[in-house]
């Protein structure tokens, strides 16, 4: 059996050798045991129950608010004239953006042969699914008459005798987000089937055997199956890569195709995509650091994984900062007085506080990741990532609210104030997200075991021994 005996620190860069992806000398069985232990071990730590309990309560609050909203109408939100898109759209863009990191890790890093993705892609993809669920909720209830939601789709109905307007970015959004949710779900589930089969074969009781048995579809690990499976995986990755870019591009079209000053800019698609990856990676780190501690996955999700993600966070944070600067430059250079006003108003108008929270959290604080200590210390990185999450929420707030509240007609200017329902729904959406994620951690394979095993060094190979000796020296 392959026994990989490495030192615990794989963040040390050593030219000429590849740092090991898995620590603790885990072999195939070790990987299986480590991951299965979460589901079949002596039960989850007590904190898991606490988190699940709080999340479920918050989720209940969310559904209560949704029920209240459906019975009463969208007037329970603070949306006013002219801020027709208030927090619901802010939350929608925020959650969709969070989801993007999962697809990036599972699809783009796969196509780029970044093997370190294998330890984190499963949890990141799960995060994508749950974030898209949270995202879809807000425009879903924002349509007012939720029971007529099917009018969004081109369904031939004789009594309606109407079709959607295919030139509207909002319709593109329906197609993009629903396609994204579907493809992400297929990708996530397909990647999980071999690991569910592992769980099936280690199930302890009949219920587990039945549930995992049905979910694993009778997977055996046949070489013929693996052959087609790998091909399907590559195809799905190749489809998901342009898809993930298109989704946030189309979300940005919701804004950019309109003519509101501050929205009508061509920089929006790349700027939104960079921001989405930025916020998504911050959420992955926020989730992974506690999860690897609680479920004993530190040998699989190593410091090096976290450090890599922090580097991506810093890179995308700089892109977002550049976009903020370019927006101001173009507003000045373009010479459009409305555009100029919109941006000056963002920074120094009545929402100046939101703008500067955004800049501090998204541009200034991530600069700490230039220091290796900050990239590898779990407390510091979680702190920074929380700031990034806050900052990215405020970015969407600034874009949506400041532009709408100061449109072309000064007589219609108004200040947006959220209602308690707004605030409870935002908090509740985190409850929904964490409920789903906590249940996922407990009951489904949190690490893609088959993929990690595929990138483990074979025993008695050069790579293994040389890596070993390098780290002895270091």
């Amino acid at each position, binding site marked *: 059996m392959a026994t990989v005996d490495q030192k615990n620190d794989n963040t040390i860069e050593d030219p000429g050798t590849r740092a090991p992806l898995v620590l603790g000398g885990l072999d*195939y069985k070790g990987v299986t045991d480590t991951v299965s232990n979460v589901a079949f071990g002596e039960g989850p730590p007590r904190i898991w129950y606490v988190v699940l309990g709080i999340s479920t309560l918050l989720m209940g609050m969310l559904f209560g608010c949704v029920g209240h909203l459906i*019975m009463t109408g969208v007037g329970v939100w603070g949306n006013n004239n002219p801020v027709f898109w208030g927090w619901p759209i802010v939350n929608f863009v925020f959650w969709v953006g969070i989801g993007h990191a999962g697809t990036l890790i599972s699809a783009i890093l796969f196509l780029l042969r970044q093997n370190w993705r294998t330890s984190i892609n499963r949890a990141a993809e799960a995060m994508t699914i749950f974030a898209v669920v949270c995202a879809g909720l807000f425009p879903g209830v924002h349509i007012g008459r939720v029971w007529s939601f099917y009018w969004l789709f*081109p369904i031939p109905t004789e009594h309606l005798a*109407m079709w959607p307007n295919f*030139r509207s970015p909002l319709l593109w959004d329906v197609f993009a987000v629903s396609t994204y949710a579907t493809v992400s779900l297929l990708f996530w589930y397909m990647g999980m089937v071999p690991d569910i089969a592992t769980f099936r074969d280690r199930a302890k009781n009949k219920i587990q055997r039945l549930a995992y048995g049905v979910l694993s579809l009778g997977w*055996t*690990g046949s*070489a013929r199956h693996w052959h087609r499976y790998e091909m*399907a995986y590559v195809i799905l990755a190749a489809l998901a890569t342009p898809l993930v870019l298109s989704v946030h591009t189309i979300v940005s079209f919701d804004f950019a195709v309109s003519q509101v000053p501050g929205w009508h800019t061509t920089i929006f698609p790349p700027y939104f995509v960079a921001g989405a990856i930025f916020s998504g990676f911050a959420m992955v780190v926020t989730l992974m650091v506690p999860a690897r501690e609680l479920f004993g996955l530190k040998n699989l999700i190593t410091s090096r994984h976290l450090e890599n993600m922090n580097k991506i966070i810093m890179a995308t944070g700089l892109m977002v900062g550049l976009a903020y600067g370019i927006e101001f430059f173009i507003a000045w250079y373009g010479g459009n007085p409305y555009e100029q006003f919109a941006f000056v108003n963002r920074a120094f108008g009545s929402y100046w506080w939101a703008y500067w929270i955004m800049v501090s959290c998204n541009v200034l604080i991530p600069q700490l990741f230039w220091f290796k200590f900050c990239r590898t210390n779990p407390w510091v990185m979680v702190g920074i990532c929380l700031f990034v999450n806050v900052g990215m929420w405020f970015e969407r707030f600034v874009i949506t609210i400041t532009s709408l509240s100061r449109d072309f007609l000064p007589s219609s200017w108004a200040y947006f104030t959220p209602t308690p329902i707004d605030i409870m729904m935002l908090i509740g959406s985190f409850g929904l997200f964490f409920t789903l994620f906590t249940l996922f951690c407990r009951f489904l394979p949190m690490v893609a075991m088959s993929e990690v095993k595929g990138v483990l060094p074979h025993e008695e190979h050069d790579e293994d021994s040389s890596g070993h000796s390098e780290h002895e020296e270091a």
Partner: protein
Amino acid sequence: MAESNAINESNTSESSEFFGLLARYENPDSLVNGCHQARLAGYTKMDAFSPFPVHGIDGAIGIQKTKLPIIVFCVALMACGLGVFLQFYTNGYTNHSPIFPGYPFKISGKPMYSLPANIPVIFEVIVLLSAFAAFFGMWILNGLPKLANPLFRNQEFRRSTSDGFFLFIEKADGSFSETGTRGELQQWGAVSVDRITAPEDELQVPGYAKLGILIVASLILVPPVVIYRAQYTKNPLPRMHVNPDMDRQFRGQTQDASPIVNGNPLFADDRVMRKDPPGTIARGELARLEDSMFYHGVKEGSAEMTGDKPKDLISHSVETADDKEKAESQDVELDWAEEFPRQIKSVLSANASGMAIYNRGKQRFDVYCSACHGYAGYGDGHVSNRGMALNKQQKAEWVQAKSMFDPKVMSQPVGRIFDTITNGRGAMAPYRSQIPAADRWAIIVFVKSMQISKTATEKDVPQDARLQRWEQVDPLKNDQTTPPPEAADSEAADSEAGQAEKNKAEKNKAEKNKAEKNKAEKGKTAESKAASPEKSTEESSNKEPSAESPSGEPGN
């Protein structure tokens, strides 16, 4: 390992079916080697199992490259076509098929079908359907889901999803012999070799499961059948509303009492309907206030028009008086317009449009006025005649409709007539809601023409028309030496006159043309067609050339 083999084999009973031999290897490399050797030995019906895709095994075991990419590509092409067609059909194309017709959106003056705006949806449709093709195609090609597999009965095989590497050679293979193959597998590096068996009865789906599946499948069919039935059956009940919030709205209905809020009516006057706030003017009403000539028949700047009283009701008091006769005598007299407002005057001055407004007025007169006032304006319409007949039998107290040629009416300025039509007089109801102001003026043009015809002299006839027609042709002229055999109003006299003129071809021709013309212009009401050629056209041809002929007669 030998122990587990023994256990496995001891479990197999006589009724078990034997499938083949399962060999376990220590690591991926030895598995690849084992597969390679087996293939060289001529085995074809075999498969390798591993917890992760092992590189090099495809060639070692002889796996053909999958057709999945081709399938996905074909689906992607079809999805592209579907995306284009969907948007073209639904937004850019008008058809009149009874079911699911297209619904063209005309937006911002752009072409009905413009590709650039459709690219995002085309792209998403391609990605979605291709992903479905890849996902479901992979499972279908793999023959999954397949929950029952004899391999799962082997305890050792469970390691295939953790750290076990297996090679399974089927009994059905041509080169297979149980002892020989077992020996070969061990020779090629297998750690252990197991027989794969399964009891035959367990390979069948149990009866209760079949029944359950049948019941569930039948129940699933119920909702679609109910929905399909609802599609074509008629239901007298109103449509069910999921949320009836639109059925019960917090608003007052027209003419309702004011809603009660906290024990008090919402509005002090206890009405739901609100008056205009003082000083406001409803949309489209500004002209009505400013143009008193056109809308009220009152001279510009007249004192009566300056108050805030509703202007349509200036002379309205006559309607509400109990005694109609008295009310008429007490009539409100305002500073009535003596001539047509400028909008009408400018139209009248042109030949063609002047004739058009005259015809319009005549047609409207026939529709609204003739019932009482008669087609010729003598106050002898059918309704009035019937009323007078009832008067004679003491069954009614009908007031004879005014003749247009009553001296009092003849002397009224146009503004006064306009007010009569607008607000009514005596027994006559107001017609402001039925007849728009411009049509009221057109009617007055026609009425005035009729009145002029009563007193017209030769001088009123245009010079050219007189030369062409009347001096040569008309024997009925007052100043002619031979008095005509006439009684102007009587039909008999008219027909006599007509006969007297029969020898004059020109006159006949003109008469005929004019009658046709009048018919054509008269509008659609049957009465007017039937009545007016006899009375009004002959009358006017006899007596009022100036009014009727400005454009018509010279043309003849």
